[in-house]
């Protein structure tokens, strides 16, 4: 298989903090890699290095055969970058932003005008195209950011948390666009805190936590790592949580995990009679539950079982509508 993005042993320190502690990433040409991890895991640091905006303290990066550390200009000619930090000019209109990039890429005048028009149409920004970007809504803003990274028809696209803070409809639109790009052969590396997003878009997922890769595989493989099923229990009375943890630990022989809300207990299991045994015990001890289920694991469970910690709440501080 042809590997387009290959990073080996990336280490990046900021003073005492180790942002990346030996990260390897590989993305086959034309596929989508989802890099999943909580805030501060090192996702953005990794993308900045892959996009030549930052140099690693150790490690190697090769993009489509170019050494990104020795030959950043060649790599910049191949990549597109969309993220909270790689942004467009708010004072200019959407169209002017696209034209500016076309001119910086030294496209002939006819080509940059045509390319800007084409992207404005494709990203449904025809009406807004001649307004300053600072007047755009959150969804429009992400679309123009993405359009700006596509002016040079990049073979490799980095999307750093492209939908954080977007409403579900805008997120769905962006997903559709990203899928279309990958179908056209663009190699995409996407970071996200949303498990659903990685599951939805990515061919493969790399889970990063505290600067290290903690798991790698297809969404299906990752789900399989947590056991065939996951037990979820939430008590009506939060005071009962500890007792239920004791009961589940007793039945399973291992300590269950506590979810982000500090009330939901979850545990991977393959035991087909666990649920009925648990129901009997809860009944004996007169503990009422809001939720008692056995279901296929989702990526929250994957993260929990990989790191021993629940995935930090992915809800952003501010929701851009």
């Amino acid at each position: 298989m042809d590997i387009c993005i290959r990073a080996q042993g990336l280490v990046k320190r900021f003073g005492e903090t180790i942002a990346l502690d030996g990260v390897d990433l590989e993305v086959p040409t034309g596929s989508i890699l989802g890099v999943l991890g909580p805030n501060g895991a090192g996702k953005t640091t990794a993308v900045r290095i892959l996009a030549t905006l930052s140099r690693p303290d150790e490690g190697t990066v090769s993009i489509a055969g170019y050494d990104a550390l020795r030959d950043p200009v060649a790599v910049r000619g191949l990549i597109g970058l969309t993220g909270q930090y790689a942004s467009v000019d708010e004072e200019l209109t959407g169209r002017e932003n696209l034209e500016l990039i076309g001119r910086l890429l030294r496209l002939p005048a006819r080509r940059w005008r045509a390319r800007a028009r084409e992207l404005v149409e494709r990203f449904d920004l025809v009406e807004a195209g001649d307004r300053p970007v600072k007047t755009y809504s959150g969804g429009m803003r992400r679309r123009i950011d993405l359009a700006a990274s596509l002016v040079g028809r990049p073979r490799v696209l980095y999307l750093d948390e492209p939908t954080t803070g977007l409403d579900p409809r805008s997120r769905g639109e962006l997903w559709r666009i990203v899928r279309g790009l990958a179908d056209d052969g663009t190699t995409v590396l996407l970071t996200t805190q949303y498990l659903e997003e990685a599951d939805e878009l990515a061919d493969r997922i790399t889970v990063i936590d505290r600067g290290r890769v903690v798991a790698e595989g297809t969404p299906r493989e990752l789900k399989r790592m947590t056991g065939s099923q996951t037990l979820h229990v939430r008590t009506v009375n939060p005071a009962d949580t500890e007792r239920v943890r004791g009961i589940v630990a007793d039945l399973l022989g291992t300590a269950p995990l506590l979810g982000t809300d500090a009330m939901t207990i979850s545990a991977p299991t393959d035991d087909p009679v666990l649920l009925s045994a648990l129901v009997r015990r809860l009944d004996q001890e007169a503990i009422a539950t809001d939720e008692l289920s056995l279901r296929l694991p989702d990526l929250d469970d994957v993260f929990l079982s990989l790191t021993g910690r629940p995935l930090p709440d992915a809800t952003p501080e501010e929701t851009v509508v």
Partner: protein
Amino acid sequence: MTATTLPPAPAAPSGARRRIGPFEALGHGLTLADRNLRHILRTPTTLIDTVIQPVLFLLVFVFLFGGAISGTWQDYLQTLVPGLMVQITMYASIGTGMALNTDISKGVFDRFRSLPIARSAPLVGAVLGDVVRYAVAVTVLLLLAFALGFRVQTDPFSALLACVLVVVFGLTLCWLSVLVGMVVSAPQAVPGIAMAVILPLTFGSNIFADPETMPRWLELWVSVNPVTHFVDTVRGLMIGGPVAGPLTVSLIAVVVCHVLLLPLALRAYLRKVR
């Protein structure tokens, strides 16, 4: 970088471009200068800063203080205008640092850095945009001054040379502005720090009043302040008087400032673009 085991560089696909030539780099810089000009036109505050400031300074000082300082405001106008030309370009240079810092904090800078363009382009664009801002401010000032009765008492060529020198003097401070813009965390912090430098330089000079009326210590500062020599040069070229002496001192000051500030500013800038 301390890469331990670099594998041999993979065979690079052919047809890719690895280096950016000087002409192409200049093209990138001009494209970004064009963008910065659109900003000046598009953002009312920048336009107001550039246009209103010279107008206010001229009107306030000529009509409010002119009579008191020089006997008649008409006399004061003649000596003040060349000095104000120097002062407003110094003020206008604050914009460079602010523009660069705004681009960095808003993420626009990183967008440019992810493109295959010259590393110098954002800086060249900002500085060239600044030069245009100087030109606009000086033009506005001179138009109003002419309307009020200011007259060039030498010749058009000298006056033009004065305008060019004013831009050169302004550029000296522009590097300080770049340095500050690279170091502070938010664009709003740039004017405060820049003003702390610009105020003593401009008010502690011979722009507004005759240094002979000042206390000894201040007169001493005024006489070593490069701005005083800039102003003497511009006055000589616009309304007559010795030019060679102050011009020599001014050019030495410009060179010294560049030797001191330019490497610091470029180093701070390159740290951000690398």
